[in-house]
């Protein structure tokens, strides 16, 4: 017990120490060089609204029609971002190239000086994301990106999206799913190449069907159903219930209590190769009062079956039988 009590305290003290050091470093840096704030990082990306600083996309086109690659500007014209040039209500800071790269007047007057305009190459994930989110941070999809695991690990928008050279026209992705995701999540590629797997490699299901790569309130960046239930029930609708006779673990702990969602060498993507062993891991003698019942003495494993689900067919829940014999 004493070990358990110490851990939160240790973590709390560590956090306090971290904050103290971070604050000293941070404020110290600010005091040393107030002038550097505008040069590198800002708390928030602030769009400059002076129209005289902007030159418009057509001006950009004069140099960038085929630069840095042939058809560069045409690819922009064919992209969803071109829509921004059609909005006549907003100011020039929301239009075309300069909506992302910032005002271009100095850049033009400097003969194409790259230091006079914002270039995404070399910028930090936070800086890049701040610019993108200035337009895209609305609704559920992107609303939590600032707190997402991806951004916290230095993965920004342009690590997955490429506005100018997208391989996937939808969402301007750098590569198709799941290859794009496998680029970092190699362990998931291994799982989806097991004999039993969700049809992700086949193109039927996408990683983003279950996960929101831009973050959210659920663990593992998981999505939820329309009625805020487990995301698995989006497709496996017959398992959602509610049931008169619930197999409680399904609802309380979720499907991953028994299944490996991506892929497995075990049938039904179970976490154990034999169904009986999986069931017995919970349905054994339990020191917890009120825990699941132990297996009855007439379930002789020397004679009975390898799968408890042979009899307990409606294992996810039943409306007609408390032993899950019928649905």
């Amino acid at each position: 017990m004493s070990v358990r009590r110490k851990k939160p305290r240790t973590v709390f003290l560590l956090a306090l120490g971290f904050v103290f050091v971070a604050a000293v470093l941070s404020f110290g840096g600010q005091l040393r060089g107030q002038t550097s704030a505008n040069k590198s990082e800002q708390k928030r990306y602030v769009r400059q609204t002076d129209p005289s600083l902007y030159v418009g996309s057509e001006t950009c086109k004069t140099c960038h029609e085929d630069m840095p690659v042939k058809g560069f500007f045409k690819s922009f014209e064919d992209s969803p971002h071109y829509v921004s040039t059609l909005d006549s209500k907003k100011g020039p800071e929301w239009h075309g190239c300069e909506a992302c790269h910032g005002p271009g007047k100095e850049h033009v007057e400097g003969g194409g000086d790259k230091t006079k305009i914002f270039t995404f190459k070399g910028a930090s994930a936070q800086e890049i994301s701040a610019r993108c989110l200035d337009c895209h941070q609305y609704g559920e999809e992107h609303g939590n990106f600032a707190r997402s695991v991806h951004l916290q690990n230095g993965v920004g928008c342009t690590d997955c999206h490429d506005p100018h050279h997208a391989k996937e026209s939808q969402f301007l992705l750098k590569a198709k799913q799941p290859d794009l995701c496998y680029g970092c999540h190699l362990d998931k590629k291994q799982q989806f190449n097991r004999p039993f797997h969700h049809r992700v490699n086949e193109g039927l299901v996408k990683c983003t069907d279950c996960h929101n790569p831009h973050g959210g309130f659920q663990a593992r960046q998981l999505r939820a159903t329309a009625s805020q239930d487990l995301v698995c029930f989006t497709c496996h609708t017959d398992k959602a219930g509610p049931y008169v006779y619930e197999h409680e673990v399904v609802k309380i702990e979720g499907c991953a209590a028994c299944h490996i969602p991506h892929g497995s060498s075990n049938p039904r993507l179970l976490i154990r190769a034999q169904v009986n062993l999986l069931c017995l891991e919970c349905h054994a003698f339990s020191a917890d009062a009120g825990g699941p019942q132990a297996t009855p003495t007439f379930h002789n494993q020397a004679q009975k079956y390898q799968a408890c689900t042979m009899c307990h067919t409606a294992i996810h829940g039943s409306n007609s039988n408390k032993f899950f014999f019928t649905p």
Partner: protein
Amino acid sequence: MRGDHPQRKIGIKHRMIYAGLLLIGALLSCGALRTGAQQDENQKGIDQGNYNIKQSIEFGGRFTSISGNTQTYDTFVNLQQGARLLGFNTEMNSLDHHGTLFDHVSFSNFGYGGDPNVVSRLRVSKNTWYKFDALFRKDENTWNYSPLANPLNPTTSFANGPPGFGGPVCTACIIGFSPHNMNTRRKMGNYNLIIRPESTVRFRMGYSSNIVQGPAFTTIHQGTEQFLLADVKTTVNTYRLGIDIKVLPRTNISYDQIWTYYKGDTGITDFAQPFPVSPILNVDLGVSFNAGASQPCAGTFLSSGFVNPTCSAYTNGYLDHGRTRTNSPTEQLTVQSNYWQNWDLTARVTYSSGDTNVFGYNQTVAGRESRTNLSNQFNTGPVSGRRVAAGADFGATWHITDKLSFNETFHYSNWHDPAAFTLSSCSFFSPNLNTAANFFTPTAPVPLTCVPPAGVVAGIVAHSTSSYPDLSNVLDSNFLKQEQKTNLAEFDYRFSEKYGARIGFRYRHRYMADNFYEALNQVFYPGPTAATAARGSCAVVNPGPVTQANLPAGCTLNADSSIGFVSVPPFSPASAIVPPINEYSGLLGLWARPNQKWKISFDMELFSADGTFTRISPKESQEYRVRTKYNVTNWLNLNGNILIWESRNNQFQQNDTQHNRAYGASAMIQANDKFGMEIGYDYNDVYSQILICYISVAAGQPGPGIQACPNVPGLVQQLSTYTNNSNYGFFDVSYRPMQKLTVRLGANLTGTSGSDLRLDPQALIPNQVTGPLNSKWLHPYGGFEYRFSKEWTGKALWDYYGYHEDPTFGAGGESVQDIYAPRNFRGNLYTLSVRYAF
């Protein structure tokens, strides 16, 4: 019963002829070969009117040669022979971005013609006016991995058994398929429309459907395991209306109204009737055939060749059907704001209150359950329930300084599922399968009127001491609830553009309630003697005569010798079945971009809980993740990751420890525009151990040296260990020796080795199959594509799918299932296609 394994083979010669014909056809259809082939990305399309149109179509055929277990092949791969539409794409873009009805249309498809996965996507948009997105997917789910839900019968022969069941070895006992196999189709459609997507107020509409239908098989445990056919049909329709309002600066308010409607109309009937019990009646003996264990019954077959009529079996009258309807209206309000300069705020509130009902529930049993003498049973009754879910989420990022920020995420959810079933059950009993049941006419009042089925006549009822109540009204009510609050607080600090770190703490509090309430109103009729009525809930308290005084509380001995039983236990309010659980996690993360080419991140989570809901949930765990990408040169990219999860639940008599460790690395080489290669390897090590209690008794004795399970008489206790070590390697090589020709070669190779506890160490029959834990799953492929002209490309692709299990158990090294119904297969697929693009 043994599953057939037809060899889907066509001769190599014929395949080559087909391939040649298809290729020649493609060549002829594309006309004279032209030079100047261009890459797909340079596809210019044609300008027509105000639109630039790009199209491509790829069609062809698959040729297959599959040997081994085709059921497993269908489960894993299911790509079959025939003509296919392998891809179709259309893209239209308005030249001036002011099209009449649309500025952009894209329509893409693949899989039509017989592939198990079919996808169509349509996207239409008109600049600032609307966006429409439609996605249709069809999935053919053929699932038949034979050991699952399989009794794994031994080959002990049956005396007097029919062909296959008699003789020295019962080969027909071996079931070469899964009794729970299925062949269903899932059709999913998603349709979403956004009106005025860029405006201050925008509207969203959506509809999605999910239909699953097709045959599936299942079993029911009633006497033995009868084989049933399920006609699966479930439908979910979801309708969504939403509005986004961006009136305040840098603030978006969204409101969604969602309605989900589920319909479950699956019906189940008995499927197999192959055994005659008399010259006029066939019965289903189920799928369990173990003569040594008297399954399905002792002396299953008579010398006359007929089934022993005292056996458990079903006739063709079994039916299980009900119409499940679930409504789930949901409301959701989301606010996202950057109104204050240093704050990013997101909040969401959801509320869903739905109801579920099962209408017309009807379960009809016809046959015999030998233990209870049950011959006919009718179960019916309404089911009603609700699902209420409320959620409140809040996320905030406070940019304290340029480098330091504080993230706060709070998640609250509270759902409860109350549901009740009022079961009315009428049971009729018979001494054997060839004798009709008798019914008793009560004179005492009864809670339920039962109409005897055809052929059932008045007479002495053949009850046994284990017979069910003749009449039964049961009210079962369940209440399941979980409330959880999660708070995550993190400080995020960027030391520089190159380095950053975060530290945080997550707390989760869970409260669960699980209440079950049951009220019984039963009647036990007498027969064959008056004393036989005293059974089940009304068995006599002490050996002796059946008198009111000798019956348990709630039982009433009636004048007609029947016994009524009423049980209404007091209802207890919701209370947690386990104490509330508090979980604590410390989080630490570091990321670095030492230079533009190298990125590495590390994060860890130290978890501790004061309780668990299941035995296999950890009380303590540590998770460490390292991911890195290194762009060594323009032509070489390296990736790597290390993921380690260790957990424990060292509670008394659990001794649970687990780990999941994965180590992977890959390299992507793009030497020039002619040669590219990706190669990688991943090792995954999964381990688990936990004490379990079970019973395994052969010859009346448990296994030697196995200790008894504490506090559960009759069970033994052992440490159940599970290991699963997987080696996965892949490579993909693309080579273009000349402008028109591209050659591709690759493979995905997985080898799995592992072990688990054998639960029946002293069983005479080697009936445990651990195949998946000692298996190889191989998918090499290769092919080439030749660009005949700017528009036409010919493709030839070969895929090999191989699955091999190494049996490890049994006296001879193999279980009977491995010998008689192995799951191994080899499949060669040849896909020939042509692509036309303009």
